C-alpha cells in the first residue's frame, strides 16, 4: 500500500519466511502418513487373509496414530492452499491458470477420499464388513499417495514449467498433460514417496523397538518390527537409486541448481564430487574441501570426463544462493546413506529370523527417528532455495510474486501467530504420540470412547 522500497523488501522476506516455516512444519506430517498408511494396508491385508487378531490389534494401534498425524497434516495443509492468495497474490494472478488446477484436483480426487475413508478406519471397524474395512485401508493408502501426485505436480511445475505459453506475462495453459507430466515430476514424486515410506516405517520400527526394550507387547512388537523393517530396508535401498535419478534430472533441467548443490563455480570436464566443504558464495570458493575427482561427472553423466556447468555460466542475478542448498543437499545424502547402514543389520535379523534383535540395534532404531524428518526437510530446503531467485523457474521471480497490498506488519503478525500456534500443537501432538507409544497397543484397544482412560 504505497509503501517504500524497504517495506516491500521486508514484506517479501517475511512472506518467504512464513511460507518456509508453514510448509516446513506441514511437511513433518504427510511423509509419515505415506509410510504409516502403507504399513497399515499391509497389516490389514494380512488380517483379511489370515484372520489372526494380532494383525488387527497392531493395525488398530497404527490407525489411531495415523489419526493424530493426519489431522495435524490436514490442519497445517490448509494454510498452504490459502498462502498463494494471502501472501503471493501476484503469483496467483500470473500463473493461477496453470497452478490452481492441481491444487483443486488434489482436493476433489484425493483429499475427499482420504478423509472419508480415514473416518471409517477410525470409527467403523465394527460397522462395516471385513472386506470393506480392508478396502478402506487401501483407499486411505491410495488417496494419500494420489494427494502426493497432485502436490508434487504443482511443485514440479514451479521447478520445470511446461505446457503453457506466456501472454503479457501471464502463463496460459496449452497442454494439461505436459504441464502435469513436466520434466521433473516423475523423479521428484518417486523421491518424495520413498522419503515418506522411510519416515513412516522408521517411526513404526522405533515404536516396536521401544516396546521390545521395555519387554512388553512382545508378539505385536515383533510383528510390527518385521513389517516396518521390510518397508524400511526396501525403501532405503530404492531411495539411493531414486536420489541418483533425481540428481541427474536436476543437472539436466536446472543446471545452476546442481552447481549450487555442489558449490561448483567453474564449469569443468571431469568435475569432482565434493564430500565436505564450506562454500563462500561471495568469494566463489569453498573452504576445507574434500573432493573425489571426476565423481560428479561420472554420477550425472555416466562419464568421468563429462562436462558439468558451473555457476559462472549464469548471470549473477539468476544464481541461487550456494551455502544452504549445498549444506541441505549433502546432509540429506549423508542421512540417506545412514538409512542404508541402519537397514543392513535389520536385513540380517530378518534373514536369520532372529527372535530377539540385539538391544543396541533397537536403541539405534529409536535414536534414528528424527533423521528421516530432517532429511525430508533438508531435501526440500535444498530444492526450494536452489530454485531461487525464481518462484517459477525462469518465468517469475520470487521477489515479484508477493501480494502488493499486504503490509509487512500484517505478515509479521501472522508469522508470530503461526509460530506460537505451531509450537503449541507440536508440543501437544508430540506428547500425545509419545503417550500412545508408551501405553502400547493394549491400552489403545481399551481406550476407545473414553479418550485414554
Amino acid at each position, binding site marked *: 500500500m504505497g509503501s517504500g522500497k524497504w517495506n516491500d523488501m521486508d514484506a517479501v522476506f517475511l512472506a518467504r519466511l512464513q511460507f518456509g516455516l508453514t510448509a516446513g512444519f506441514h511437511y513433518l506430517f504427510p511423509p509419515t502418513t505415506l509410510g504409516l498408511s502403507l504399513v497399515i494396508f499391509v497389516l490389514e491385508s494380512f488380517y483379511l487373509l489370515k484372520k489372526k487378531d494380532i494383525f488387527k490389534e497392531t493395525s488398530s494401534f497404527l490407525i489411531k496414530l495415523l489419526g493424530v498425524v493426519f489431522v495435524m497434516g490436514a490442519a497445517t495443509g490448509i494454510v498452504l492452499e490459502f498462502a498463494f492468495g494471502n501472501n503471493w497474490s501476484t503469483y496467483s494472478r500470473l500463473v493461477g491458470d496453470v497452478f490452481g488446477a492441481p491444487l483443486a484436483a488434489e482436493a476433489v480426487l484425493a483429499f475427499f477420499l482420504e478423509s472419508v475413508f480415514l473416518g471409517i478406519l*477410525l470409527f467403523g471397524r465394527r460397522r462395516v464388513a471385513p472386506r470393506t474395512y480392508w478396502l478402506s485401508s487401501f483407499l486411505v493408502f491410495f488417496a494419500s499417495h494420489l494427494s502426493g501426485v497432485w502436490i508434487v505436480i504443482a511443485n514440479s511445475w514451479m521447478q520445470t514449467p511446461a505446457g503453457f505459453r506466456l501472454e503479457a506475462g501471464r502463463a496460459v495453459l496449452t497442454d494439461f498433460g505436459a504441464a502435469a507430466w513436466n520434466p521433473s515430476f516423475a523423479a521428484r514424486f518417486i523421491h518424495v514417496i520413498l522419503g515418506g515410506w522411510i519416515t513412516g516405517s522408521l517411526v513404526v520400527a522405533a515404536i516396536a523397538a521401544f516396546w521390545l526394550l521395555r519387554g512388553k507387547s512382545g508378539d505385536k512388537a515383533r510383528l510390527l518390527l518385521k513389517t516396518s523393517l521390510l518397508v524400511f530396508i526396501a525403501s532405503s535401498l530404492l531411495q539411493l537409486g531414486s536420489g541418483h535419478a533425481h540428481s541427474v534430472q536436476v543437472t539436466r533441467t536446472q543446471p545452476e541448481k546442481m552447481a549450487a548443490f555442489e558449490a561448483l563455480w567453474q564449469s569443468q570436464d571431469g568435475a569432482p564430487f565434493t564430500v565436505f566443504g564450506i562454500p563462500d558464495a561471495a568469494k566463489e570458493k569453498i573452504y576445507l574441501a574434500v573432493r573425489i575427482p571426476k565423481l560428479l561427472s561420472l554420477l550425472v553423466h555416466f562419464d568421468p570426463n563429462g562436462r558439468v556447468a558451473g555457476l559462472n555460466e549464469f548471470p549473477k542475478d539468476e544464481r541461487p544462493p550456494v551455502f544452504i542448498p549445498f549444506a541441505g543437499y549433502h546432509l540429506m545424502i549423508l542421512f540417506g546413506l545412514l538409512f542404508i547402514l541402519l537397514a543392513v543389520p535389520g536385513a540380517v535379523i530378518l534373514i536369520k529370523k532372529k527372535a530377539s534383535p540385539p538391544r543396541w540395534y533397537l536403541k539405534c532404531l529409536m535414536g534414528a527417528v528424527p533423521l528421516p524428518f530432517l532429511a525430508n526437510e533438508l531435501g526440500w530446503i535444498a530444492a526450494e532455495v536452489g530454485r531461487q531467485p525464481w518462484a517459477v523457474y525462469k518465468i517469475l521471480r520470487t521477489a515479484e510474486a508477493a501480494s502488493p497490498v499486504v503490509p509487512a506488519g500484517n505478515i509479521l503478525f501472522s508469522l508470530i501467530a503461526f509460530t506460537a500456534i505451531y509450537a503449541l500443537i507440536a508440543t501437544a501432538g508430540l506428547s500425545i504420540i509419545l503417550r500412545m507409544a508408551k501405553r502400547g497397543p493394549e491400552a489403545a484397544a481399551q481406550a476407545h470412547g473414553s479418550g485414554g482412560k
Partner: protein
Amino acid sequence: MSAASVLPDIWFVLIGVLFTGYSILDGFDLGVGFLFPFLAKDENEKRQLFRSIGPVWDGNEVWLLAGGGALFAAFPQAYATVFSGFYLALMLVLFSLILRAVSIEFQAHAGTGRRFWETVFVASSALPSFLFGVALGNVIQGVPLDSRMEYAGNFFTLLRPLPMVFGLLGLAAFALQGSTWAALKTTGALQDKARRAALMSAGLFGALFLLSFASVWVGLPSALKKAPAWTFAGLVLLALIALFLAVSKKKDKRAWIYSSTALLGLWGIVGAIHYPNLVRASDPARSLTVFNSASSPLTLKVMLIIALAGMPLVIGYTVFAYRVFKGKVRLDDQGY
C-alpha cells in the same frame, strides 16, 4: 456463442455448489462446536456430541478446500484479490481451522488438557462461522478495488453493517444446522436440549434473514430485481416453517433436511443477486466478474472434466460413509 463462453458460468455455479456443500456439511459440525457448552453438561453428553461429528467432520472440511482450490483454478483473479485483501480476517479463519482440527483429535487423547482443548474447540468453531458470513457480505455489498484489481480497503472496511448482519446470519444458520444434527444423533436430555436450541436458532435465523434481505434491499436495490432471488427467498421461508413443524413433531431427520434446504436457499439468493460478479467493487466498473477474472477455456475445460469425474464419486462414497454411521451415536464404537 461457443461452448467456451459458458464455461465461466458453469464454474460460477460449481463453486457455489462446493460452498453450499461445505456449509451444509461442515456447517453442522461447526454448529455443534459452538453450541457445545450450551448443549453438553456432563461427560456422557460431551462424548455423544464429539462422537456425532467424529467420523465425518474431516471429510466435511474438504468441501472448503475444494471450493478454495476451484476458486483459485477457475477465477485466479478473484482468489488473489480476496485472499490477499481480506488478509487478517482470513488469518483468523486459518488459525481457527488449525486449532479446531487438532482440538477435536487432541481432546480425545489428552489426559489433563482435555478442558483446554474443549474450550479451543468451541471458540475455533464460532469464529470462522461468523467470519465466513462477513467475507461473503463484503463481496456482495462491494469493496474498494484499485485499477490493478487489488483490494484498497483495510480490516475495518470489512466490518460494515451489512457484512456484520451476514456474519450473524451465518452463525444462526450453522447453529440451526448443528442443533438439528445433534437432535438427530443423540438421545435423552441432550436430544431435548438440541431440539430447543433448534427452535431458538430457527427463530434467530428467520429474524436475521429478514434483516439481511432488508439490508440488501436498501444497500443494493438493483440486486433484488432478479426474480430467482425471490424464489429462493420463498424457499428459505418455507423451509423454516416446515422446520418448525418438524421439530415440534420430533421429526429430527426432516428438521435437518429442512435446515439444509434453508442453507441451499440462502446460497441460491447469493448466486442470483451476485451473478456475474465474483467480487463487487465499490466502483462497479472495477468489479471482478466471471468475464474478467476467469482462467483460460482450456483450464476451465480440464477442471470441468476433473469435477465431472470426481464429484459423483465423492458424493457416492460420502453418502456411503454417512450410511455406515447412520442412527444414534454409539459410544461403544472405536474412536473418540
